[in-house]
């Protein structure tokens, strides 16, 4: 596989920690909708627990290299979120999505995942790494737009956060590619799961309108940001033709009604019988 392996030992030794002291844009006035959008990204960064709960009930928790990385990744994410909270200031927090479906998903998701994980074994690890890679791309695109909309001092802080996210993404890119390349089961499962979830990760915990507002504020009517991300997803082994970002830009915060048909261009992913791994 790749020759220069991501150096986990070096990464965990020098994480990005508390940033408040060194923020340049603290106190700069932001348009209300931009502040809302930043708080939206902040909630994703500080809400890693739900995702980790589903990940650690699977075989992934046995991989000490990945768990070492994730421990530090969650730590960094917390402080990125803290910096965003400081920049955006206090504001309304939408209630966590309540409906019965959301409650069931939140409570029994990890439970169901733990059961299903025993069927899929290590293929799920590849899916999880791919999820985080795609999420990093989407969140990075959001912050890049926020940089353009924010005063220079705030933009400089956002740039630092983006650097941190980019470093994390290196790990996810490497582990995801290796896993997808090496396992047909991982490719099949990744296609299915990536297509089915709402983006960014954690959007399923918010009212649909919160995600829609954040996307609209940052990107406006122009959906070209999505094409760049979709092209990168297309280039991952077996994941061509999912159009995840385009769907997110058109119907933010929503999961698709049904799984899109498999692209004829995918050579890696062979058809699988439906309904075997409904893991939600």
């Amino acid at each position, binding site marked *: 596989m790749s020759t220069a392996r991501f150096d986990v030992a070096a990464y*965990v*030794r020098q994480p990005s920690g*508390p940033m408040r002291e060194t923020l340049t844009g603290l106190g700069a006035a932001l348009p209300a909708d931009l502040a809302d959008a930043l708080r939206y990204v902040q909630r994703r960064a*500080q*809400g*890693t*627990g*739900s995702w*980790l*709960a589903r990940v*650690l*009930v699977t075989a992934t*928790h*046995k*991989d*000490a*290299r990945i*768990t*070492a990385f994730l*421990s*530090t990744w*969650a*730590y960094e994410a*917390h402080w990125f979120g803290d910096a965003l909270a400081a920049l955006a200031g206090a504001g309304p927090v939408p209630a*966590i999505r309540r409906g019965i479906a959301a409650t069931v998903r*939140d*409570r*029994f998701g*990890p*439970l169901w995942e*733990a*059961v299903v994980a*025993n069927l899929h074994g290590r293929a799920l690890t590849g899916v999880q790494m791919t999820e985080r890679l795609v999420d990093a791309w989407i969140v990075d695109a959001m912050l890049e737009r926020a940089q353009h909309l924010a005063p220079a001092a705030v933009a400089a802080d956002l740039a630092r956060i983006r650097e941190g996210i980019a470093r994390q993404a290196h790990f996810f890119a490497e582990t995801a590619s290796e896993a997808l390349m090496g396992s047909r089961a991982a490719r099949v499962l990744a296609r299915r799961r990536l297509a089915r979830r709402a983006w960014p990760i954690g959007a399923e915990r918010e009212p649909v309108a919160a995600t829609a507002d954040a996307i609209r504020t940052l990107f406006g009517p122009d959906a070209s940001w999505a094409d760049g991300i979709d092209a990168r997803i297309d280039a991952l082994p077996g994941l061509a033709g999912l159009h995840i970002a385009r769907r997110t830009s058109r119907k933010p915060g929503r999961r698709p009604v049904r799984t899109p048909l498999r692209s004829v261009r995918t050579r890696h992913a062979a058809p699988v019988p439906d309904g075997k791994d409904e893991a939600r």
Partner: protein
Amino acid sequence: MAFDIDTFAESSTAVAWSDIDLDAFRENPLPEDSLRALRYMCDVEYHTVCYLRDMLVTPSHGDGEVSTFMTMWNREEYWHGEALAAVLKVHGIEVEYDQLKASRIKLGWRDRIDPIKQAVYGNIVGKDFVATHMSWGSVNERGAASAYRRLAALEPHPALAPLLKRIAAQESRHIAFYTTQATKRLEESKLARAFTRFALSKVWGPVGSTIEPEEEVRFVMGYLFDGPDGLREVRKMDEAIAKLPGMQGLAINEAAFRARGLYADLPAA
């Protein structure tokens, strides 16, 4: 005792040991028994992620304060493992990612069933289960802190004791968080008190007993806590646990150690 999560998070650091001269172990290595205890402790620290998982599948992760703590705590414990691994390494004992992987795979079916079990309890007992987890955490952090302090006292190697004391100081902050949370949550709910009392008296075992062979548990507990001094330390832990709402009269540490053959010649309280 109030616990300020922001202060805790901002001051959360990876335990440092670069200023401690580990080469001192080359001239003056630790005896085999102490190394065996360190190996056990190192394993326990590295397995924190399994405990984090058990925590996350309960309804606790929705709580901002708890999830901030878990994030910091999990990383601190990881570095406890790294620090101990560094000491072991000087002695030629390698604790590498791959070996750890093997030991987690060894956990086998129990490791597969545990998250399911935890999630089931968590969702049947619901929010009250968080109180049990917090109490459990309080008990285990106390166990860890006093194990490190005991080892530092028994093995006052000039390079080891300072490191163990630094780790123990972080464990004390963990005790404070879990105890504050447990006390509040136990006070609020009778079901939480009943379930926690049941879990601690019937299910709980000494730190590490779910991941280490019984032989190792016996050895390490005996090495650290046997004799009148050890028993005094153990009773101190049990007294603190018994102060949690609804836990009066519990003496789970002493009971667990007596069940493993310790204190045969010392009278029960």
